[in-house]
Each structure stands twice: as C-alpha cells, then as structure tokens.
C-alpha cells in the first residue's frame, strides 16, 4: 500500500486513492473531501510516479496513463471482493447478472427435439442468451402465487434475406448461480405467432403455446400454457391427452413435448411447476420445415 495511506482504514484509503485517480482525468468526483487531502494526494501521486519511474513533471498522455494504471493496481488491492463468484451469484439470484456471464447448459430434451440440427441450435441458443434483444427475469421470491422464480427468458431476432425464414429465438432457463439450465428453446416465426402487443417474453411463450400447444391440466389449472401450478402432495402431475380432436378427421395421436421448470417455492416449501407447455412436436416440426428451419 502507498505509505501515506497506511494511517487510514481501508475504506477511507480507497476513497482517497480513487479521488486521486479520478482527478487525473479531471473528473469532478475527484474533488477533495477530507481536510489536508491536497497534500495527501500529492504524496500519493509522487510515490506512485517514483515507483514506476515516471518523471513527476511529465504530463504527457502516456505518462498519465501509466500513473492511472499504477493507481488502479493499488486500488484493486484495497477493494477487490474476496469472493467474486459469490458476488456474481448474488447478482444472478436477483436476475441482474449480465447475460453473457451465464454458463449455459442445455437439457437433453432440447437436444432430442432438434436431433441432427442440435449443433446449430446450440449456437442459436447460446447467441440468444449472450446477446439478447430482450430479457425477462424472475427473482428469487415469487411476488404473487404461482409466479415462477429464478427463471430467465431471452429473445433474439435472427433476420434472413428471405422474410419467411426470419425468426425470433425464445430461450427459457432456470438460474443456478451463474449456471443457466435451458429447458425452453423455440423458433418463433412472426407469420405463425402474432407478437403484436406482447408486452413480456412470457406473453411470447404463451402465444407460442397457444399456436403449437395442446390442452393440459396442472393441479387445478387447465390450458395450453400454465405460468405456475402448485402440487402440495409432491411433484405436480401434468396430464395431457395423447390424442387431440382434429375437425373432420376425428381423433389423432400426437407426439407431445412437455417442458417446464420443477421448483420448490421458497416461501411455502411447496412443489411447483413453472412455465409449463405441452407442444405438439409434429405441428412444430412441420412449421420449422415450412420456414426452411429443418
């Protein structure tokens, strides 16, 4: 530590050092706050310059840059968090972690869904998470009953020279610290899913499920999309009819992919399923093919 700062506690020393560094660039946050700070600052700068072999009279940009770097090193020693990973996990818990810091893991169900195309889909998913056009995050505690928690949604538009092939990628994942376990990964084609007026990414997922999903029951709730459903007795059961009514063709069997996040509500300790969809894979794959996505 710079010797003149040893008389101060770490917080005060860091403040003095930071203001000295800010003053080099003329930042008003570098204004003095303590009595006699002017002479303390002079001593800091002199000691830092001598240590780096910088002539105290050298005002060239290169010399000032070296001085700034030297002060940055001293400041880092005073303020660097003991455990950066823990800090980042705290940010993630609140849904405030920069999305390109997530370690993305994709559940096997998504890989099965896309089959031989999975390598490309993995890149699309990772790009969507890293550089989303829109994000939506649920924090660690549900604010209303049946609301998801620790879940994030990301959306990115991938334009194509052929408009019918342009699509939005919607990715949904559960946050575990800085890990993101991706369960939802859907192509949203504007001609298939009307996004006009969709205020949130949950709205986008709901509209996608309305178009490609089938009716299901989660606990006492029915629909093609369930935001969240509780099951006090254990893991929530999701009931889906394996057949659907096709007008003028009677009933037909469907291949359904059920996607959801199984969670335990931190407020009530009750099991909970969130962002539940039951997607008709034949219908979805047919749409992908029609748009040149398969």
């Amino acid at each position, binding site marked *: 530590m710079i010797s003149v700062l040893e008389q101060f506690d770490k917080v005060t020393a860091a403040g003095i*050092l930071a203001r000295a560094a800010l003053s080099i660039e003329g930042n008003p946050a570098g204004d003095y706050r303590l009595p006699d700070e002017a002479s303390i600052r002079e001593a800091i700068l002199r000691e830092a310059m001598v240590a780096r072999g910088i002539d105290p009279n050298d005002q060239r940009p290169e010399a000032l840059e070296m001085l700034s770097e030297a002060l940055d090193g001293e*400041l880092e020693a005073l303020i660097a968090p003991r455990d950066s990973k823990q800090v980042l996990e*705290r940010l993630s818990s609140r849904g405030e972690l920069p999305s390109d810091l997530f370690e993305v893991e994709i559940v096997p169900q998504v890989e099965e869904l896309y089959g031989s195309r999975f390598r490309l889909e993995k890149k699309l998913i990772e790009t969507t998470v890293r550089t989303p056009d829109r994000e939506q995050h649920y924090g660690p505690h549900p604010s209303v009953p049946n609301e998801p928690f620790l879940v994030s949604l990301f959306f990115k538009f991938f334009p194509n020279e052929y408009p019918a092939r342009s699509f939005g990628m919607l990715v949904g994942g559960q946050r575990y610290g800085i890990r993101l376990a991706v369960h939802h990964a859907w192509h949203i084609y504007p001609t298939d899913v009307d996004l006009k007026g969709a205020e949130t990414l949950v709205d986008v997922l709901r509209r996608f499920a309305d178009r490609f999903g089938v009716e299901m029951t989660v606990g006492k709730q029915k629909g093609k999309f369930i935001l969240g459903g509780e099951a006090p007795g254990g893991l929530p059961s999701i009931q889906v009819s394996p057949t659907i009514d096709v007008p003028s063709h009677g009933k037909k069997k469907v291949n359904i992919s059920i996607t959801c996040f199984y969670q335990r509500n931190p407020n009530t300790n009750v099991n909970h399923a969130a962002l539940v969809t039951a997607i008709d894979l034949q219908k979805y794959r047919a749409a992908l093919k029609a748009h040149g996505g398969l």
Partner: protein
Amino acid sequence: MRYRHGRHYVWCSEVYDPTTAAAASPAAAVAPSSSPKELFERLRRDCDAEERHSDAIRRYRRRFKQLAAEWHAAREITELQRDEIVATVNQTSWNIWRPQLYVIARAPIESAGRLIHVPIKERAAYGLEFRIHDLRPEEFVIIEGTFP
C-alpha cells in the same frame, strides 16, 4: 439504475454528431473525443468485435472501480454494492459496455439550475459541453442500436 437511487452523472452535448452542425456554430467545435456519435460508435465497434484491447473499455473499467470506491467511502453505496460493481466490471462481459444514447429534455434541467456548463479548460475543445450530476431515470430516454 440500481445504485445511488438511480441518480446518473452525465456529460452531455447539444448535438449527437457535431460534424453535421452549422460550420460556425459552437456545436461544430465539439471535439471528436467528446462527440456522442464518435463515442457511441467506437464503443459499439469494440463491443461487436469483442476487442479485448479496447482503450475505451479499459478506461471505463478503471473509472467505474474508482467511482465505486469513492461512492462507498462517501456512503452513497454499501460495501455489497461496491463489490457488485467491481466484480461485474472485472469480468469479460461485453453486455455491460454496450453503448446507450441518453436523450434528455433540456429545459426542465436547465431551469432547475442543474445543467452545468463545463469550463473551457476542462473541455476537449472549444465546443460547449455540459454536465448533470443527478440525472434521474424519469428525466431521460435510453436509445440502443445503430444510427446512420
């Protein structure tokens, strides 16, 4: 928005691109290093290219750590908040440096005496520059993207 009750400290200019201002006007005399367009595009290029040797990002990283230390010493943020800022800027994230344009309605800020003219000795060139020390989130609009 998360820290210091959302108060922002901003340097601002009357024009986005000084090179399009009338030749004899003060706006045209704003230096490239103070031009919102130049700053925006330089940062955009560096983020898009994930330029690890970006001078701009290196300086911003340093400045945010300095500000975090100063704000904590001044009790404007907590130690936990300081740690969050420092841990975040020390990561290799490009999202945190993506440029944003703030569009600020001048009249209410100026009439409240909060629009501070930067003295000429602190400016990069002759052109007018301004500072606002306590801009609130409801006082500006954020624009992201690319501009012609």
